[in-house]
């Protein structure tokens, strides 16, 4: 049984105005097969948590730990974290000139598995996964994210999630900018991945909308760089009714 543990995590970021403290002691335990929603107002540090888990060099961990099945994630490089089973679906996936989706997927799969996938199965797997996400087959020959619409970029992230089969996925505002059809397709993809692989999910979102399609086991409200409140799915319903207003006092001290 896999587990991702975040203990007393403090994270700074360097800005032109000097060092800013963004995460101020985050504690979180995600077991495989669990869905944790992290909700919070803009600037509360949600994306910082996502990028820190993935190892983006912009963020400096000043205190605390991240452990994947007891292994120290913070000592791993970005690619080592991915190979260990962590996945970040990005809010703003970048364009990679000159690299086709096909080539990228095969290279990533080979890197994650440590060996090239068998050609016959792989081609079929990719085709099936693209079909499930209603992606046109012409997609495969386009350069990664180049000229993709917002919805296409998010689908491409979930395509990778389904094919690379990580242990834990962080979905950073995957719902933002999606119309309802795209939101359903993307959510189905996430649910399918969980069904197929027992994936543990950290679902970061500003809105409750996606929680109609991806049902969280736990909801954490993130304010000013730490968890202000946590509970079950009912907490999301309450946020939908009340918004983040009652946490607003704390938010004045928030960063990002």
């Amino acid at each position: 049984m896999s587990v991702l543990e975040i203990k007393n995590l403090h994270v700074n970021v360097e800005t032109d105005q000097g060092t800013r403290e963004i995460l101020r002691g985050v504690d979180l335990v995600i077991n495989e097969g669990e869905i944790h929603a992290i909700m919070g107002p803009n600037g509360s540090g949600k994306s910082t948590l996502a990028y820190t888990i993935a190892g983006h060099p912009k963020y400096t961990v000043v205190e605390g730990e991240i452990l994947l099945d007891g292994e120290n994630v913070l000592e791993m490089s970005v690619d080592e974290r991915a190979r260990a089973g962590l996945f970040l679906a990005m809010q703003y996936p970048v364009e990679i000139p000159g690299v086709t989706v096909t080539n990228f997927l095969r290279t990533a799969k080979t890197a994650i598995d440590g060996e090239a996938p068998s050609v016959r199965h792989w081609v079929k797997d990719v085709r099936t996964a693209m079909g499930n996400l209603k992606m046109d087959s012409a997609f495969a020959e386009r350069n990664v994210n180049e000229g993709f619409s917002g919805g296409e970029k998010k689908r491409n992230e979930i395509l990778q999630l389904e094919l690379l089969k990580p242990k834990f996925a962080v979905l950073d505002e995957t719902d933002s900018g999606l119309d309802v059809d795209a939101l359903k397709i993307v959510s189905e993809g996430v649910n399918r991945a969980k069904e197929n692989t027992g994936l543990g999910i950290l679902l970061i979102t500003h809105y409750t909308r996606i929680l109609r399609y991806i049902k969280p086991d736990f909801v954490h409200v993130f304010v000013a760089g730490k968890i202000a409140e946590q509970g079950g799915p009912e907490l999301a319903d309450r946020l939908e009714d009340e918004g983040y207003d009652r946490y607003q006092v704390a938010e004045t001290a928030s960063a990002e």
Partner: protein
Amino acid sequence: MTVATQSTAMPTAGQHGLVAHSDGPVVPVQTRSERFRSVEVADFAPVTGREHEWKLSPVAAFADLTSGELDGARLGLETSGAEGVAVEWIARDDARIGTAGTPEERASANAWTNFGEALLVRVTGEDDKIATVTRTGLGATPRAAHTVIEAAPNSRGLVVLGGTGSARLSENVEVIVGEGANLTVVSVQEWDDDAVHLASHFARIGRDAKLKHIVVSLGGKVVRVNPSTHLAEQGGDVEALGLYFSDAGQHLEQQVYVHHDAPNTRSRVTYKGALQGEGARSVWIGDVLIGNAAVGTDSYEQNRNLVLSDGTRADSIPNLEIETGDIAGAGHASATGRFDDEQLFYLMARGITEEEARRLVVRGFLTEIVQQIGVAELEERLTAALEAELQGA
């Protein structure tokens, strides 16, 4: 990283308020086809580096080639022939010499003035065939060379003109493509790190003939290969491709000129380059002139650069002059993009190592050109050479 792009026709003499250019006292010539040309080095003023054809080049690095005495003896060659491709030395007064073009700058004229004999590569017969001529062991002596590649009417063939080892070479290459012929010329510069190579290629395309011309520059301190193509007769077609990888301290330059001078001619110019390391430098100037006679012209030129690190500079200057309104199409594009830290993060976040990520991006970017070469063994060797460049080998 600095990117310079401009896209202008040359000013005309009657242009209102025309004054001396900031580059110097010389007012640019009206059109590319009216540029001064001569086979005599003495007809050109000494090179200062301010001339429009030299202003982006490190002229001090090769003063010996623009103004010194050049050794015009036969070059050391390694050839692998094919049936239907003859390789031989011909005298200076051979009637073919000078039929494809005339020097437009001093290094080219210096080579023309000083070469002894010319190397003739003559392609005949309608079967596909491949011949390779590699110049090697040229050493530190400043040298002049002249090569004529001639494709007989209706012939087909592919000629690889290579360079390895040390060199200080200024040369002219004439490419004469006979009526209905289909010729591919691949110029591959894999010189040692200290080499300087200045080349002007002049191609004349006959009626309904096709030339695919590919410049691959990887090795050498300063490599400048300037291919000009004269689409002199109707139905002529040129596909001019280029591929370069400039690393620290390297200057790779190409000034590409296509002159549409007859009806229904077609040109496609595609040059792609990668730059990596402090002082890595590339220059691409693409001039296309669609002359008055060239009705029905179909033309497109583009240059793409991929910047892999700080401290590099890519100049990319497309120029398009059109003298007739009755054309099928003419366009140009230039783009210089960088492989940045966010791209690297994205790829690494999918388990791909940093080294592999760079390889993936560069290979993806340049493969389009490599695949056009059409010689499997050479394509494999160049792919390997590109990967070695990436690893700083």
